[in-house]
């Protein structure tokens, strides 16, 4: 995967839960190394989009390609290989509450790499240093504040050095300063490691800081995509309102 080539391709993807159609024939792509923000009102399928990318959910129709692999057709080792390229920052971090922060990060390293214990320690120290939690690795998730949990979740998402980082509402529940710090960490990851970012957010200020391009969803359909200025000039009123709602 090189810059400019699509890292993720969504092609006519549909997903319904019972009678509720969450996504209908949605198509978009994001070039490698770019940051795309998915914007939309609540319940428009933004988080579902992220879960479809990493195959936690399967679409009813359409294909989703990551680095050329169609994840909708993969299972077992093939899916595991693709998932290793993707880090996922969950909305509430989803840290395993029975494990310390160190153990949370060590789990995928033990399972998926052949690193020695010293190399695992080094990798964990490096990534915790990146998110400024180096002194907290012995803590349980319940001992971390909201902002620390987000950064810990980000550390776990980054510990396998993914090519693609998915972030679900990275600034939700955080004050503006902490939210900006999280955005700064995401941007640093993109610039230093050429990581492709897909960020789901309601925070327009954050979207403006992070996004190279914006994908706007409404009622399960794609209503606009482009750069922030392009969305501001969009013919679709909802898209314009969403990108300008905090302005």
């Amino acid at each position: 995967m090189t810059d400019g080539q699509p890292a993720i391709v969504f092609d006519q993807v549909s997903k319904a839960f019972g009678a509720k159609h969450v996504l209908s024939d949605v198509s978009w792509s994001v070039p490698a190394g770019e940051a795309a923000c998915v914007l939309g009102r609540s319940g428009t399928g933004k988080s579902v989009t992220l879960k479809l990318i990493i195959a936690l959910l399967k679409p009813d129709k359409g294909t989703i390609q990551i680095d050329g692999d169609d994840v909708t057709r993969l299972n077992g080792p093939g899916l595991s290989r693709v998932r290793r390229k993707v880090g996922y920052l969950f909305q509430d971090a989803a840290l395993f509450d029975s494990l310390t922060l160190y153990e949370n990060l060590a789990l995928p390293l033990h399972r998926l790499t052949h690193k020695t214990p010293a190399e695992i320690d080094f990798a964990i120290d490096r990534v915790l240093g990146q998110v400024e939690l180096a002194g907290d690795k012995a803590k349980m998730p319940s001992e971390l504040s909201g902002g620390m949990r987000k950064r810990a979740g980000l550390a776990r998402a980054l510990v396998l050095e993914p090519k693609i980082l998915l972030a679900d509402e990275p600034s939700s529940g955080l004050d503006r300063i902490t939210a900006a710090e999280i955005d700064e960490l995401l941007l640093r990851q993109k610039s230093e490691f050429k990581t492709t970012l897909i960020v789901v957010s309601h925070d327009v200020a954050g979207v403006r800081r992070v996004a190279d391009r914006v994908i706007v969803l409404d009622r399960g359909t794609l209503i606009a995509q482009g750069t922030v200025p392009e969305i501001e000039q969009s013919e679709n009123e909802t898209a314009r309102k969403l990108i300008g709602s905090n302005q």
Partner: protein
Amino acid sequence: MTNVLETAGKVSLFGLRAAIDAFRRPFEGAQIVRNLAEVGSKSLPLVIASGFALGAVMTLHTRSTLTMFGATAAIPTVQAFAFFLEIGPLVTGLLVAGRAGSGIGAVLADMRATEQIDGIESLSVDSFKYLVVPRIIACTLALPVLTLFMDFSGLLGGFLAEYAASHLSLQLYLSRAFSEFAWSNFWPPTLKTCVFGFAIGTISSFFGYTTNEGAQGVGKAATNSVVVSSLMIILLDVLLIKFIFFIFPETAL
């Protein structure tokens, strides 16, 4: 009725998948030990206390009955047979279903609601193998050991109640308790609790792991785990007793 059959089918497939996965690498030794501590050692005080109390109460009741027939000397024998054959395995199963089963159901449902299971999957770790299989193995291994503690604490409670009434010595009590006892009275009922443990682990894990009702699902999973596990233990007990009688006909005499 259709729903019950559908759920029974799903639970069976869930248990079959766990049984197959238990023999696939990685074997999750650390997780099994962690869950053995949770299911086994943390259930131990409850099992011992219950066994002791049941043993004492049972002796007090049987004593008043057997006295009428002049058969008080049979109290230790009755106590041993009752505990090793039935009370120990069944009550231990029900206690563990209540304590550990509800815990397993609630913990897994909470992990589902808070996206921790999705988190494990997103890291390319098989969540079923990592979370479910060790819990089922832990229940399967812990039940026979807990049953032995229940059996012997029941005998101890029975002895103390008998000693208070007749000052029977411990040596004579044990001698009478096991005078008619054969290995076929001991191993099959004790080992049948492995099946109880497998059922508790499978049913509780199923309701916790497969919930999709958010926070509300946590309480529901805990309740379903206890109710269905307890019911299944009683049904399995009936079937396994018939099976043991078939394999060891002398125990049916």
